């Protein structure tokens, strides 16, 4: 559905996006992650046909974004990050205007508007001027506009920013639902949102793609640096020394709380050191009240990978 090949975009001499390639197949939600300035917005602007690439190519739904941009725009629903709207128009008026631009006519358009008003919970303020709406309400109007013409591809830049927790959850459900029949490219900083909603994540930093895969795959890649947490009743230095001597343990940090020593055990490579630690503690006769592997989160992976990339870029 979306094919990007060797895409480069320069502003002046600086490449905002440097020779990136990726593919998004039909159906499903793909997350596009990256720190600020990584090139996410630039990339999706090229895909939405707002800016041209400096070199390389991109195609959406089989049409080239440069030479067949009208066809691409008919098939894409784009929600920019700033959710630009016309403050003087009422919501319904605005949706009618956008619907007409999309080629929806007459009764067809009225039905489409009713559908998105319902799906994006706009009914309460559909006749209010946009200038009087809160940020969250505007966000929903923008989302409604993007999905109104039922496009095969949706490109959403931070769609849940500004929403309250209930709405965030419902919007994520909506996006997941949309992923069943559309192809969705979701730009987000909210990493656990990407984990929940996306079947695949592409991480971009400093203009380059640094990782791509399902959230689970990416977590597993990071999980290679396993960390174990345990609570042992024993004298801090003694416990620390003993645990450090367990094979596979690289580094131990300990704090004492209420007579219990809390340990953060860093293991080398992907060894699971829980068993030897439990055995050691039992042998020494200490009480053990918790031992667990700390789940690597996508956030840890993200922070590390992007830090490495920023360093490399310098």
């Amino acid at each position, binding site marked *: 559905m979306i094919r990007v090949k060797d895409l480069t975009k320069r502003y002046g001499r600086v490449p905002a996006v440097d020779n990136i390639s990726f593919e998004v197949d039909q159906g499903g939600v793909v997350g596009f992650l990256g720190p600020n300035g990584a090139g996410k917005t630039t990339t999706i602007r090229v895909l939405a046909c707002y800016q*041209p690439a400096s070199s390389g190519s991109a195609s959406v739904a089989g049409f080239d974004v440069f030479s067949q941009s009208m066809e691409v*725009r008919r098939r894409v629903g784009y929600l920019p990050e*700033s959710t*630009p709207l016309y403050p*003087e*128009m009422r919501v319904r008026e605005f949706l009618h205007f956008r619907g007409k631009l999309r080629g929806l006519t007459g009764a067809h358009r009225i039905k489409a508007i009713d559908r998105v008003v319902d799906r994006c919970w706009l009914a309460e303020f559909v006749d209010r001027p946009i200038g009087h709406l809160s940020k969250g309400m505007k966000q929903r109007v923008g989302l409604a506009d993007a999905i109104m013409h039922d496009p095969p591809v949706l490109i959403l830049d931070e769609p849940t920013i500004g929403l309250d927790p209930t709405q965030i959850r419902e919007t994520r459900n909506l996006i997941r639902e949309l992923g069943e029949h559309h192809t969705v490219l979701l730009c987000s900083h909210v990493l656990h949102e990407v984990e929940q909603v996306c079947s695949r994540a592409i991480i971009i930093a400093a203009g380059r793609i640094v990782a791509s895969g399902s959230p689970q795959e990416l977590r597993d890649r990071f999980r290679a640096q396993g960390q174990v947490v345990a609570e042992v009743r024993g004298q801090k230095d003694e416990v620390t020394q003993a645990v450090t001597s367990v094979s596979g343990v690289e580094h131990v940090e300990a704090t004492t709380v209420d007579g219990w020593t809390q340990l953060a055990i860093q293991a080398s490579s992907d060894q699971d050191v829980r068993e030897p630690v439990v055995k050691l503690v039992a042998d020494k006769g200490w009480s053990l009240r918790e031992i667990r592997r700390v789940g690597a989160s996508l956030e840890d992976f993200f922070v590390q990978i992007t830090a490495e990339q920023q360093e490399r870029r310098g």
Partner: protein
Amino acid sequence: MNNVATMTRRELGAFFLSPIAYAVSTIFLFSTGLAFALGTFRPGGEASMRSLFEFWMLLILSFVLPMLTMRLLSEELRSGTFESLITAPITEGQVVLGKFLGAFAFYGILLLVMLLYPILLSFYGPVDSGLLICNYIGLVLLGGLYISVGLFFSSLTKHQVVAVLSSFVLLGLLTFASHALAQTVEGSLRALLQHLSIRSHFNDFVRGRVDWTHVVFFVTTTLVFLFLSIKTLESRRWR
């Protein structure tokens, strides 16, 4: 419904919702009313609106029309709505044409309201309707040009103030200064400047002549500025 009509409808509606448009319309009606009252509508004056049209309309319109057009594209560029507009299946040409026609329609409404003056005049003496029609044709053509110039400067910048001031300057120069400037130079440059003088093209309409050369002048220069606006917008997508 085609995109130009959609844009026109939206823009015209936006004018009616815009406080600036109301303020500008008030200025327009007030200043033309004043010129009419002082210049024409006095006992013993001639029953034509010549002084109004000959000079005052040009001056007033060169202020008022740029003020109406300044936000047309500048506001979209500044607020980011241009991004969501142009990522819809619409061409820059349709955007420009739609905005032009919307502003033009609003201007048309102002001209209709201005018919009040000849109507008032008609209670006191015969009004030459042929002359009036001729004057209005000139106003329509002139307005079209002024609006296209204002639209062009609006397409260049996201700062409305820059747009409106640049329009003032260019229109002021071409309308009032061109003829005078022409006297200071010789040869083909003088001929060019004389030909570009909007005032001299407009004057024949004031006198009651519809000369095709003048119609062509207004129509082609309007088209030139519309074309330039389209190209300016398109160039944004090449950067």
